[in-house]
C-alpha cells in the first residue's frame, strides 16, 4: 500500500488508472515516433524508386555482419526488457534488476558495434560529400539515408539506455517501487527502438546481397 502511495501522482485517484494513462500516453508518443521515422522512410522509398540501380550499388557497400549481429543484439535486449517488465509484475526485484542491467549492456553493445561499423565506413570513405567514392546517381543518397537513419536510431537508443540506467539506479536505491508504471513505459519505448531497427535491417543491409 505504501509502495502504491509512493508512485501515485496527482491528479490520479488510483494506480491502475495512472498506469493506463502512462501506457496510453507512451503509445501516443510512439505513434509520433512512427511518423517521425516515417518521414525518413518516405524519403528512402521515393529515392529507391527513382534510383533502383544506385541504391543497389550503394547498399552493396554496407557491412551485413555488423547489421545482422546488431539485430541479434537488439532483439536480445528486447527479450531482457520484456522479462524485466514481467518480473516487475511478479515482484521479483532481483530479476528486474538483473534484466535491466542486461538490457542496458546489450544496448551499449549495440552502440559499440555501431561505432566500429561507423569507423569502417568512414575509413572506406562512405561519407556523403564531395569525395564520395560511388558515382552512380542514388548511391550517395542511399548513404545519406544510411547515416541519418542509423544516427537518429542510435540517438534514440542512447536515450533508451539512459532511461534504463536511471530505472536501474532508482530501483537499486529503492526509490522506484516495482508497481511504478515507469517500467512499462520505458519498455514500450525500448521495444519501439527495436522494431525500428528491425525495419532498417532490410532497407540498409539486406538489399543488394543477391546480386
Amino acid at each position, binding site marked *: 500500500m505504501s509502495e502504491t502511495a509512493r508512485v501515485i501522482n496527482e491528479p490520479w485517484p488510483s494506480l491502475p488508472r495512472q498506469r493506463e494513462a502512462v501506457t496510453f500516453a507512451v503509445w501516443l508518443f510512439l505513434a509520433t515516433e512512427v511518423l517521425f521515422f516515417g518521414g525518413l522512410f518516405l524519403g528512402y522509398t521515393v529515392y529507391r524508386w527513382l534510383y533502383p540501380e544506385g541504391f543497389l550499388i550503394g547498399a552493396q557497400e554496407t557491412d551485413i555482419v555488423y547489421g545482422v549481429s546488431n539485430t541479434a543484439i537488439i532483439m536480445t535486449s528486447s527479450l531482457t526488457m520484456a522479462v524485466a517488465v514481467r518480473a516487475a509484475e511478479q515482484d521479483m526485484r532481483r530479476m528486474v534488476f538483473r534484466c535491466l542491467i542486461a538490457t542496458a549492456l546489450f544496448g551499449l553493445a549495440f552502440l559499440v558495434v555501431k561505432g566500429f561499423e561507423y569507423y569502417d565506413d568512414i575509413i572506406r570513405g562512405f561519407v556523403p560529400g564531395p569525395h564520395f567514392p560511388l558515382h552512380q*546517381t542514388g548511391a550517395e543518397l542511399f548513404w545519406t539515408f544510411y547515416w541519418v537513419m542509423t544516427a537518429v536510431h542510435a540517438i534514440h537508443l542512447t536515450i533508451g539506455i539512459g532511461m534504463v540506467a536511471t530505472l536501474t539506479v532508482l530501483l537499486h536505491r529503492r526509490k522506484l517501487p516495482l508497481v511504478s508504471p515507469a517500467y512499462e513505459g520505458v519498455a514500450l519505448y525500448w521495444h519501439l527502438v527495436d522494431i525500428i531497427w528491425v525495419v532498417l535491417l532490410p532497407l540498409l543491409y539486406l538489399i543488394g546481397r543477391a546480386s
Partner: protein
Amino acid sequence: MNPFVYFSRVSNEAIAVDHIFFALTALSIVIVGVVFLLLLVFSVRFRADNPVHRRKPPRIFEYIWTPATFFLFLFIFWWAAANQLGALDHPKDSLDIHVVAKQWMWKVEQPNGVREIDEIHAPIETPVRLVMTSQDVIHSLFLPALRIKQDVLPDRITYLWFTAQKPGIYHLLCAEFCGTEHSRMTGRLVLMTQPDYARWSRSQGPSRGLAAQGEKLFRSLGCSGCHGPNSSVHAPDLAGVYGREVHLSDGRVVTADEAYLRDSILKPGSAIVAGYKPEMPSFAGTVGEDDMVKLIAYLKSLAGHTTINQQGERR
C-alpha cells in the same frame, strides 16, 4: 497602366480562368452577404430585451445544407478540374522558347538562337511552349496577363504553354521566393503579331540556330564519338530519338522528351536503353544549362521535327 490588370487578359485560357474566378466571386459574395445579413438580423431581432416569439431552428436545415454544400463543392471541383484538363491538352507543334532561371535573372533563348535577358518575345495566335529549367534554386515563372505560372526547378525541365491573342507588353515575374533579389527578378513579356515577331527575330543580329550550336557541342564534347553514325562503340543511334518511345533495360518504356534526354546526359545510369551497357560517363558539371538547351535542340532537329521553330529559322 490600368491598375485592374486582370482586365488585360491576353489568351482564351485566361478568359476561362476569369470566368471561374468571377463565378466563384459572385457565389462568395452571395454567401458572405447572407451570413453577414443573418448575423445582423438575428442580433437585432433576437436581442435579449426584444419581446419576440422565439422558437428553435428546425433540424431539417441540417439535412438540407449538408448535402447541398457537398454537391455545390463537387460541382465547382468538376468545373475547375474539367477546365484544367482542357488546358493540359496543348497543341503538339509549338514554338519552343527556352528559359533558364538563375538568381536573379531570366535567360531566354529563342528558337533561332537569339538570346534575351528578362524578356520574352513571342508571337500571338501561335502555340508557344516555354521549356524551363533553373541553375540554382526554385524559381517560378509567372505571367499574370495569361493567368499562368509554373515553378522552375533545378536539374529538371518544366513547361508552360500558351496561345496569346493580344499583342502588348506584360509583366513577367518570379513568384517563388528565391533569395535576396527575388522581387527584382522581373521582366517583360512582349507579345507581337506574327509578322512583327518574324521581323523582330530577323533584326536580332547574326545568330546561329540553337540546333547548329548544339551540333558543334555534340562534336566537341565527344558525343559523336560513340553516338555518331560511323562509331564503332555500341551506343544508341540518336537520329529521330526525340519523341520516340524508348524501351529501357529495367523494363520501363519512356518517351524521349526533353527531360529524358537531359537525364540521359547528366545521369546516364538512371535510364539504360534495353540492349546497351551502362558505360556512358555523366556530363553533370560539364554541360551547363545553356549548353543543354543547345544539345537538346540539336537532338530534336535530328528527329526531323517540322515545327514552327524551323519556320522561324528560315531566312
